[in-house]
């Protein structure tokens, strides 16, 4: 059905395009500014000469960032915490989501209620801290990966996926073939569930990559700090002097440039993966939205 648009409707269209374009500029400009700032001469940056593109292109800021002896080890820690943590997340989330997705499981409503209740009520920060301390997990990777092993929201999304995409007949016929439920999950359900596993792995790994607060609570040994904790010191507490070297006025001049370069270094991996993974992220939110 093609109907000629009235002038009013064309105006309506134009206004929306204009607003959306402005929104996109507002979103992108700060990011571009950070990138340009990181490649600019710090004096030009301080004078406000950087507007869109780098001024007096230089890689000096990055050289200073790489001079920081703590950035690379913390980068390594974050990769380790992200990979290990995501595996733990997937294991535990599956263990909850699959049984709860099976209509023939006795008592599944009770278990679901017990699990979902934790979304709305918790013991709080201090009892959780005391628990982690009493389990002797302070300053270990376990403190960062176990307390948040299941996001109940993600678990419900995964359960919904199992319920809506795995045909019940498939499970029944496998039962007739003498498979037990774990075999059914491993051989039949898992191969059909790659999309949801990808989505969950992405959600959880972005969470681990960007997380800093559990490290603040549970990690005091600097050699075990994740990247975000080091970033916090550089960006928020402005500890850039060690990297800048030289005298105090020099340090002040290069400080901002160092911060921008640090932001780029820390965010680059996610930004590189983002365009390829975008459709998976969106899919995950969509599955969640179906349930409402």
């Amino acid at each position: 059905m093609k109907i000629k648009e009235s002038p009013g409707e064309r105006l309506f269209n134009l206004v929306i395009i204009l607003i959306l374009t402005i929104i996109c500029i507002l979103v992108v400009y700060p990011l571009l500014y950070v990138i340009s700032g990181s490649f600019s001469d710090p004096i030009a940056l301080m004078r406000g000469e950087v507007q869109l593109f780098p001024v007096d292109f230089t890689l000096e800021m990055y050289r200073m960032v790489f001079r920081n002896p703590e950035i690379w080890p913390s980068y390594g820690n974050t990769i380790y915490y992200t990979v290990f943590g995501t595996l733990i997340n997937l294991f535990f989330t599956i263990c909850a989501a699959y049984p709860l997705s099976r209509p023939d499981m006795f008592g599944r409503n009770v278990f679901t209620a017990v699990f979902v209740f934790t979304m709305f009520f918790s013991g709080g920060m201090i009892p959780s801290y005391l628990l982690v301390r009493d389990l002797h997990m302070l300053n270990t990777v376990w403190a960062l990966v176990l307390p948040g092993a299941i996001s109940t929201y993600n678990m419900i999304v995964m359960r919904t996926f199992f319920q809506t995409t795995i045909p019940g007949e498939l499970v029944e016929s496998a039962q007739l073939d003498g498979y037990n439920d774990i075999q059914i999950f491993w051989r039949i359900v898992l191969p059909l569930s790659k999309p949801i596993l990808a989505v969950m792995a992405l959600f959880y790994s972005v969470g681990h990559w960007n997380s800093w607060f559990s490290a603040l609570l549970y990690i005091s040994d600097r050699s075990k700090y994740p990247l975000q904790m080091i970033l916090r010191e550089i960006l928020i507490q402005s500890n850039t002097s060690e990297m800048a070297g030289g005298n105090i006025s020099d340090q002040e001049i290069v400080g901002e440039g160092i911060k921008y370069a640090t932001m780029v270094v820390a965010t680059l991996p996610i930004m590189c993966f983002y365009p390829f993974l975008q459709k998976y992220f969106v899919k995950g939110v969509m599955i969640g939205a179906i349930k409402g």
Partner: protein
Amino acid sequence: MSAHAANRTAGKASRFRSAAKKIVRSKYLYLMLLPALLYYLIFCYYPMYGAQIAFRDFNPIQGYLGSEWVGFKYFLQFFRSEYFFRLIRNTIGISLYDILVGFPAPILLALMINEMKSKAFKKSVQTIVYLPHFISTVVVVGMMMSFLSPGTGIINQLLVACGGESIHFFAQPQWFKTIYVFSGVWQGAGWGSIVYLAALTGIDPTLYEAAIVDGASRWKRLLHITLPSIIPTIMIMLILRMGSIFNVGYEKIMLMYNPAIYETSDVISTYVYRRGLQGGEFSFSTAVGLFNSVINFIVIITFNKISRKVSDVALW
């Protein structure tokens, strides 16, 4: 459930036997569930048990049960403290400001994206607006601090260039909430719009065709078809958002605030962190945290009830 109904007529013993049979039949599912159940018991329910130290003078050597019971002493101490009113005011104030600005933003964005006919334009807008969601809070706060810094920040350079005066945003209490809320919109509105876009794709296209035949303009179609169709989604999101009104993003606040602006930025959770983990007052801060959890829980139940009455939409 019909099997269950049939059992009701039979004796208790047979009901028990059939339940036992079902449990045996599901034994592998239980085995699978076991790690998850242990996780919830240890990391979610045990801390709830541990929260009893709010009612005790907690002493690590005597443990949870051995420490002396003091009843509501720490709660009263909190209610009477000079910070009580300020913490409540800030917590609710930040939440309401955030709901007022941050809640409609993704809805408007989704409606605008939905109105676009060009697939390529739509896709590019979506790619761009989702992006900030993936930047860490530390980096976002770091960016704001750099942009808003009094000497070298681009915002202040702009202000000065326009003849204004440089503002020390992060040292002035009146700016905190605005920075918090609008940086949140910048980072989250795009991502938040996905839920609404999902709801919008579910609208029956024949509704629009009929409206076009009836001569409804695009504006009218938006108002009378599109908007009503996503009201249930909006309601669910609103219940969730209102339910967490006492649950502000304290991780971000902790990165943003400093003693000079505690007046407007200190919220219950940040106070719990400072008194409990920095100050070591475990019982007092647990009491404050428990007060927060209970209020939270009451609020979400209330909003769920209201919504069920008013609009038939509810979480449970």
